[in-house]
């Protein structure tokens, strides 16, 4: 199968959805500009016209309400924001309207909108271009929250999101846009609400989402060389969360390390630790653990983000500690070939 980037996979999903169903529209700041939201919306306006693909005013709250209203009459809007942080302006429409519409109007009508939010990190994004607030969305009944890691999942889940009958918050980590992967052509869907066991393993269950899955894979490769076998569950959807898959894995390994790209306190990883502790008490061999962002805003200076985010070495260290093994996890960082604040040398700012 051909290999394309996560960003191209998003672009393909949008294109496929719009081709299939003329009710799908796509708007947001810059969707039709020369950069095309990190390449994800390039060419769509040319293909589908400016009535279906359009730029918008900087008015996040109303434009979310507009999506809701359009969806009540059969349109399927996909709205995009270049950073999640900007979307804080639209919490009223998202939470008071979109999330509740189907319930509060007695099931008469749902709100099939998809909201793409990009999660920033590193290279000076700073406090207001880096927030990973999936825990907020997951706390609100009525929202589906999707966080793909691979290009394949990005395409399959975005198509499922667009054709889902409910509001979906679709979170794209900026460090994933250039990740390559094999992606089927055409209409290809991954169901919302299904986690993926990326690697089977025996000793520890690692539960991750989005970019954390990449770091977990690096850590596991290293751990494997050191004789430690982890099972990696990539959530893909954080709400509704696939508790069965998580529970089945922890039942098998008896150990849990939950990862999160957001701040630790009140994180989705915390919820996973809580549910596993409450529900799988007797299967657990030891205390569950969590690795997440510290409870601080992301600082801007590269000197301050050094060591700030969870990386493979931290994951390896944590797993080693759980198993009481001495492992030289420092090797992982030593082998990294690019500065700590970029996902790879392809990235040189600004966003």
């Amino acid at each position: 199968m051909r290999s394309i980037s996560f960003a191209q996979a998003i672009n393909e999903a949008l294109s496929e959805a719009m081709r299939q169903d003329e009710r799908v529209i796509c708007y947001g700041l810059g969707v039709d500009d020369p950069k095309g939201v990190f390449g994800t919306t390039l060419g769509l306006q040319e293909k589908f016209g400016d009535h279906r693909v359009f730029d918008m005013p900087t008015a996040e709250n109303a434009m979310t309400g507009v999506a809701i209203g359009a969806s009540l009459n059969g349109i399927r809007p996909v709205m995009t924001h270049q950073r999640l942080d900007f979307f804080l302006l639209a919490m009223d429409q998202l939470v008071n309207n979109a999330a509740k519409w189907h319930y509060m109007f007695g099931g008469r009508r749902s709100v099939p909108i998809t909201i793409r939010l990009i999660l920033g990190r590193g290279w000076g994004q700073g406090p207001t271009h880096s927030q990973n607030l999936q825990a907020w969305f997951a706390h609100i009944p009525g929202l589906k929250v999707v966080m793909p890691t691979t290009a394949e999942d990005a395409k399959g889940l975005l198509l499922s999101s667009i054709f889902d009958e409910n509001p979906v918050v679709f979170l794209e980590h900026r460090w994933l846009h250039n990740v390559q992967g094999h992606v089927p052509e055409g209409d290809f869907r991954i169901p919302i609400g299904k986690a993926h066991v990326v690697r089977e393993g025996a000793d520890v269950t690692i539960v991750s989402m989005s970019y954390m899955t990449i770091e977990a894979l690096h850590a596991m490769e290293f751990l494997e060389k050191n004789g430690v076998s982890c099972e990696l569950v990539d959530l893909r959807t954080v709400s509704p969360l696939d508790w069965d898959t998580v529970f089945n894995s922890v039942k098998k390994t008896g150990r849990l390390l939950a990862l999160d790209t957001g701040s630790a306190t009140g994180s989705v990883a915390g919820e996973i630790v809580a549910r596993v502790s409450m529900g799988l008490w007797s299967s657990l061999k030891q205390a569950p653990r969590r690795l997440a962002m510290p409870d601080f805003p992301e600082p801007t200076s590269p000197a301050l983000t050094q060591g700030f985010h969870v990386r493979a070495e931290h994951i390896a260290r944590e797993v080693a500690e759980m198993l009481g093994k001495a492992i030289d996890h420092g090797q992982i960082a030593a082998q990294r070939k690019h500065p700590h604040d970029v996902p790879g040398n392809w990235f040189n700012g600004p966003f």
Partner: protein
Amino acid sequence: MNQRNPSVIPAGLPSGGAPSSQAKALLFSMKRIRAVEETIASRYNEQKMRCPTHLSIGQEGIAAGVGLALNRDDFMMSTHRAHAHYLAKGGNLPAMIAEIYGKVTGCCRGKGGSMHLVDEEAGFMGSTAIVGNTIPVAVGLGLSIKLRNTNQVSCVFFGDGATEEGVFYESVSFAALKKLPVLFICENNFYSVYSPLRVRQPEGRKIHQLAGSLGLPASHGDGNDAVRVYDMARRAVDGIRRGAGPQFLEFTTYRWREHCGPNFDNDIGYRTEDEYLAWKKRDPIVMLQESLLGDGRATREELDGMAATAQAEVDGAFAFAGQSPFPDPSEAYTGVFK
């Protein structure tokens, strides 16, 4: 497609044509709304309607006028104070009363209450309890109309207070930018809860002028003159349907009773009894009734007949609501997703 809202027009009154039949349709619509609201008021203290309920008594002229100007398949959205709009658009009355009583036959199966009404069959697409937050939704309906290339209009009601929200400004601007088929109706009753305009909006602001400066035709009128409201709304709707883009109408009016609930509250100090009495003299129902009687377009008997028809319908609706079962408690745990 082009028929008027049937349910607001009593048998025997033609649904268009001569001014006098329109006036009678307006009068009946107002009387019906008034009968509903007065009945709620008189029974609210039984504590069986257990949800916040905002009455429109005194403000019926606007709902009636705008409602008559719209087609059944046009869209309408509204606010916390939505009963009159829902009814004027042809919303199902028994389903509304049942909703206020929390019954499973309610328009939201009891989940929404008075502040969340919906009747999509009548084009009433929803009302919500957050000030200003249906405005962009109605604009989104307008966008959908344009995309689907139908000939509908999306109409949204909101109060003077709602125009203070940024989302109002953003929504009107977007409708103007895209020339969407949206009719904005501001019901200016001079108060937001207990707060008069002067503590909320800059001195000298005229809401319709402000709206005009956002980029769409805007005018204002006396909301207690239902015929005038109808005329203005009708003209606006015609323009919008011709593709001329959104329009804005501000109507002044007055809420007779407390902001939320069944009582009069002119004694608690935020407004004067005199102010209330002056507005009460301008009761939109009485004014239209006198005009019809005055020049012989209607007889006293006709009017009594309307009142009786309306009250019978209202009593039926309350009986329906009373007899309807409550939803099963398990329904609380269903319906988050479709």
